[in-house]
């Protein structure tokens, strides 16, 4: 079954924990990442009232270095980025199960890697 990481990115705080947890797990040098934050904004919408008035979205992107923490997950542990995500917005599992969490109420992104 294909595994993936689901991100409820409405709540991502841009805390960088996933990035650094991954860097340390994979032992990546300066400038390289297994997962890297992207940031859009902040800017204002003229036509959207609060609480949606501001656009300021964080979303991590997964690179080719990511092996979905095979070494950890086979032992029953969570992927390092998921385990340390401070905003409780990352999930790991079978993509079919993860897809069911996308309820249309918040913004989600499902990321899967090459197997």
């Amino acid at each position, binding site marked *: 079954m294909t595994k993936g990481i689901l991100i409820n990115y409405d709540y991502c705080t841009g805390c960088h924990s996933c990035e650094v947890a991954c*860097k340390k797990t994979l032992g990546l040098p300066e400038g390289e990442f297994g997962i890297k934050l992207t940031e859009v904004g902040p800017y204002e919408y003229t036509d959207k009232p*609060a609480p949606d008035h501001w656009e300021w979205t964080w979303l991590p992107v997964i690179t080719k270095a990511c092996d979905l923490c095979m070494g950890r997950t086979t032992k*029953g542990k969570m992927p390092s980025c998921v385990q340390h995500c*401070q905003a409780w917005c990352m999930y790991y599992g079978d993509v079919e199960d993860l897809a069911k969490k996308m309820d249309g109420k918040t913004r989600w992104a499902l990321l899967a890697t090459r197997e």
Partner: protein
Amino acid sequence: MDYQEFLDSIDKEAYHEGEWRWEEDGYTVTRTYHYSPPGCHTSCGILLYTKDGKVEKIEGDPLDPCTNGKLCIRCLNLVESINSPDRLKYPMRRAGERGENKWERISWDEAYDEIEEKVRSIWETNGGNAIICVHGTGRNINWQVPFFGQAALKTPNISTFGFTGFACYMPRVCGAVAPFGDFPVVDASEGHPARYANPEWNPPEVLVVWGNEPLASNADGFVGHWLVPCVQMGTRIISIDPRLTWWGARADYWLQIRPGTDAALACAWLNVILEEDLYDHEFVDLWCMGLDKLKESVKDMTPEWAAPICDLDADDIRNSARLYASAKPGAIQWGLAFDQQLSAMSLCLAGCDLMAICGNIDVPGGNILLHNAFEINAGYATGEHFTPEEWRIKKLNNNFALSIDGGDFVAHASSDGLLQAIEEGFPYPIKMMWIQSSNTLSCPGMDAARLYEAMQKIPFIVNADPYMTPTSVALADIVLPVAMSAERNSARTWWTPARAMVKVADFYEAKSDEQIIVELGKRLNPEVFNQWDSDIDWLDWYLREGSGSAFATSEAADNAGIKSSGSTLFKHTWKELVEDPAMCGHAYDEFNASYNKAAKGLYRPDGSVGYGTPSGRLELTPMLYTYWGLSDTPFHVEPPEGPISTPELMETYPLILTCGGRSFEFFHSEHRQLPTMRELHPEPLVLVNPKTAEKYGVKDGQWIWIENDHGRFKQKVKLSPRVNEKTIHAEHGWWFPESKAEAPYLFGTFESNPNNCTKAFVTGQGGVGSAIKSMICKIYPVEPGDKMPYEQIAETGNFPWYKKVNSPRQDEIDRFHKAMDAGMEYEVFSNELFDPANNERFDLKTGARLAE
């Protein structure tokens, strides 16, 4: 987020539930807690992976109920930090002049010998009060260093030196102890081991995030990310902040307030809630007192009155007040900005009044009044009875040192009082400074260059720190290497649960704060310290007998009803706390896990119903404020400089400068030597609105000067709409460990330091609160050939245009110096001069000759 689903999903075997130590893939794994250094005010559960006595990996512990395995990057990057080549390895004595950064390695015994000899000779000649004992912010020095200062150095002069007006946390602590008897903290179910699954708990309906960014700061023992699950469960947000934050970007109301005017907004909220009758009548009738007087005091402070002061829209003020009042429950996450304005004590009172009249105290999802777990309360006042009375009474508090009216309610000495004593030898000279875990010059030290000049007058300075800092290079005569978390045994409360830290590694000759204190304590006051054989012995004492007042003076704490009993409610040893499978490093207590504690009689020592205040009620107009010489109703004071108080100065300095917002990468002045942190955050960034940048000709990524009538500093522009066109925001705590250590450069500690612009001796009522988040400034690009701050300071001691703010007792000080030059004597307590030549006496205050 479904908490139960998360708990159920954890593979308990993979994470070794119930074990504190095990072997795994060639590593020894230790389940423990972290506590700065390096880090923050909180303690997250961690798993440390060691091999051959070295920490090689760290991860969060998903079975820890405090933070459920989540870690911020400061702990995720721990290995880089504790193995940093920049760390101090051995005790060292200064070999050249101060500032030359020349050192000779000495043994711990040699260091202790020299310190002991100096301390004893100061006791003989000047008394213990001539020693200042400085500690930094929250780590295992909160109670340890005050205890050491008072019991071993025998001085009452303990301080987080450099903070004019106690401008960090003390205003909130004391400002809450008076009306509530205790301290309010947002309830993210942190008091209960079941956390979000506690059936009694519900998230706040509305959360007011006011004057702080808890996600990055994790301040005051509270993990900011605890609040994100609340938002996921539906909590609505009001953000009160001059900067757009994560909270403001998803808030129902983001009130982009003018820095330093929060008290006006708080008074207007009180006005709306009381005038529109939105307060919780039942709660107020049952539990509060002083409503009529409070209502009368804010009756003219309408949103229309506050709007131009705060630079906000009156309707937004009114509607946000209504939203907070309508929430059942609402919670206020207050922060450092409350302490860093002239209205500090008034604002803290107004904040408490808002919580109380809306019935949000001690209810699930509101503001709960926490205690330190098991009443393990050792704090700033601990050990004060070990200072000899004759020295104790010379504590340089606001009242004694600066003649500011009012009670002595903060357990610390007054930073300005200490500065005056250092600069002027008045009312008595300072002979030694002991610094433990404070990079004074780079971080807390307001009026930075002035402090630097003053501190050079102190004959003997010892600095205990994990790193060689600008403060050590500039000023220390002896430096002592301090062990970091993972290299020391320790324990903490600061709310709940009680947590233990276990030593798993050594770093050269570094010793833990506790070890240093116990070892040196045995030399200086064997009677007290010989009851403990080791750091662990001392921790056992802390856990079981470490009572006392955490932050307020013992007298203030007693008056507020939080009397120290002399013993805690904890029944275990440190070793049991670490190893017992039922605890594995943490223990929750019953008190903090309960709600409606007033009705249950849990707040009052005699078990009676009510709160821990003199009256037993939540005092909206607290008697203690009156006793302390403060107004017992809230009011607003303008920042000392700004569009309303000094419109003419705005022509020269047209922008408002706020500063000190936290980053994920750094804890105050820590972490600057770590490659991973600097990869993410290489330089100090000043937020400038794009329109402001255009107006003043500065560009994104450009280094600019930020200048006021005191000094200037440089940071790199980050264009951002997070601040409005009138305001810029600068970072604090920057120094550059990769650069030159020797004076005058001092790792660049003055180059980017907003404290070049802050002012000692400018405080709010009672000598409390400092306006450092609401300065004014001008900005312009750094040009080649510009003189750098370190050069300007080296040339004349400060910036060429610097104007020193005098002590409120400057006239007396001048008289004092004249009299000393004329061979007269000074009597500290009567504040009289005595001329032995003709037996005449003079009142120093007035200069008048006194009748025989």
